[in-house]
């Protein structure tokens, strides 16, 4: 892969590849990553595997890359799109993304073929923090929020932390990555909105029961969630009651991804309840569960 330049497919209008020596030591790169594999998982979700340079492989769970979703000289979409790291394969030198095709940018992204170049900036943002050394963590993901939480299971396993994961989805055909999570030694429960299928019921009350049950049984030390505002609220409440800390990965529309433009702010509250605005791209995207506010 090249770190700058190139014009094939989702690359930029670079006219000159800069002498990359001076930047080699920088933690964040703008790079062209050759696509290794790109498959539809179902009608809406796609799994993208790209080759990436060593410094990009340092990405942590919860961090993201900012992807240029355009054909070479095209002008739209003008801005990049943020995508969480779904998996890092340090041995093969590959980074994986799991994403839902929702609009113009992801539609163009979905057209990448193996061998094409993906222009990515990253790794960006603050990921999940396991420094409190919990003995057990509970992951609660809704929909594509799974893409963001999945690598945390592997990171936990590497540190000898027990993992339970509850995956919630509209219907069973979008319950992805169950196998990948189980490989990471996570105990996986699946729930859906579809009363007719064999999974559990995704109603917030039902999920709350499961959470309380698991937390009590396993001695959970950390909640981690992504993908649903209602589940976030529930988990915040349960966290306070049971004295379990939590982390949540949030989304916001972005401009720069580097903390420069203040497009991506969201309201938060500090411990005394004062509201302040933080940048999802650089202060997050992972935040303390109790510091989030309802909106």
């Amino acid at each position, binding site marked *: 892969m090249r770190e700058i330049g190139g014009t094939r497919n989702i690359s930029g209008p670079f006219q000159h590849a800069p002498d990359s020596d001076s*930047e080699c030591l920088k933690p964040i790169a*703008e790079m062209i990553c050759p696509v290794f594999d790109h498959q539809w998982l179902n009608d809406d979700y796609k799994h993208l595997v790209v080759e990436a340079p060593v410094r990009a492989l340092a990405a942590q769970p919860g961090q993201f890359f900012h992807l*240029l979703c355009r054909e070479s000289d095209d002008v739209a979409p*003008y801005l*990049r799109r943020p995508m969480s790291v779904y998996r890092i394969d340090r041995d093969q030198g590959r980074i994986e993304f799991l994403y839902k095709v929702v609009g113009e940018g992801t539609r163009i992204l979905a057209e990448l073929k193996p061998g094409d170049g993906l222009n990515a*900036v990253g790794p960006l943002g603050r990921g999940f923090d396991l420094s409190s050394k919990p003995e057990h963590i509970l992951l609660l993901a809704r929909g594509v929020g799974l893409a963001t939480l999945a690598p945390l299971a592997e990171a936990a396993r590497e540190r000898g932390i027990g993992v339970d994961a509850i995956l919630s989805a509209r219907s069973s055909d979008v319950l992805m990555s169950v196998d990948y999570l189980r490989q990471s030694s996570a105990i996986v429960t699946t729930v859906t909105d579809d009363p007719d299928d064999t999974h559990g019921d995704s109603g917030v009350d039902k999920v709350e029961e499961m959470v309380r049950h698991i937390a009590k049984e396993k001695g959970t030390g950390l909640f981690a969630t992504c993908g649903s505002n209602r589940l976030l609220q529930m988990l915040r409440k349960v966290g306070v009651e049971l004295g379990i800390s939590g982390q949540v990965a949030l989304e916001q529309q972005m401009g720069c991804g*580097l903390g420069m433009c203040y*497009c991506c702010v969201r309201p938060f509250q500090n411990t005394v309840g004062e509201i302040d605005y933080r940048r999802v791209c650089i202060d997050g995207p992972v935040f303390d569960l109790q510091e989030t506010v309802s909106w």
Partner: protein
Amino acid sequence: MVDLSVDIGALKLANPIMPGSGTFAEGMEQVVDLNCIGAFVAKTITPEIREGNPQPRVTELKNGMIGSIGIPSKGPEHFIREIVPFYNRFTPPFVASVSASSAEEFGELCAQISVEGVDVIEANISCPNLKRDGEAFGMRCADTTDVLEEIKKRTDLPVWAKLTPNVGNIGEIAQAAEDAGADALVVANALLAMAIDTETFRPKLGNVMGGITGPVVKPIILRMAYQCAKAVDIPVIGCGGVATVADVAEYMLAGCTAVQVGTASFVHPTAMINIIDGLADYLEGQGLNSVTNLIGAMVEPGNNAEGVVEAPSIRTVGGGNEGGGV
């Protein structure tokens, strides 16, 4: 070797490329070697602490964006304590950007931040003047004069006036700024615009209106930079839609001494350093040995270097085209 250095008054820049205020911050240091850039321009600060505008703050266009951030600011103390020392670790000169709601506050803020490590103050006069019912200072000659005179009284640093493009006769404002003591002009801030979602009937920005930036604005801002360069003797710094070497050349041919790169850095964090590299190649290709050879070098129609006879001239009424009729 091609010489890329330019002088903005007494200030020497290693090259004419610097960021636009608010499109650059410490995060960039994680991506590129900051010592390569011509100068640093900090995000605008205000006297008071501000959070900025409601979400959504950005909406995309085909070749640019509309933003309504609203200048969140942590105030001058934080600026002096955190921002100035950060940039002083690097070699390029450091430009502070300020905004306020009255000429007096502008002056006060500039006095406060005229500290070691700040090389230039850029006065962002696109902000609302509370005495004018929210109309920006930069929309009137008199207000422009007031702000700049007040600032010049309170600081010895060079002062750049960053004009707003939301005016009629920008040359007039440029002259007012020069007369009031501005050491250079930055032309210009963002063009006011809006967009509405035709399914939900809601504005696409929380603040309804916002500033349009990126390549789409270049032909308009270039025209303004050209008008300003004709109107004043102080250096003009072009700012609007610069994304490529050709954009830099266009601004400089129109009379600019340097340029600022804004939104392009969001799309390509490496945009500035790519442009700096490419600029040397372009100049070599043109057989020029200094980037200063470009400044104001546009050939005016009628000035035919090769002495070739031009097409028969066509009768027109009035000299100007300031009204923008096609």
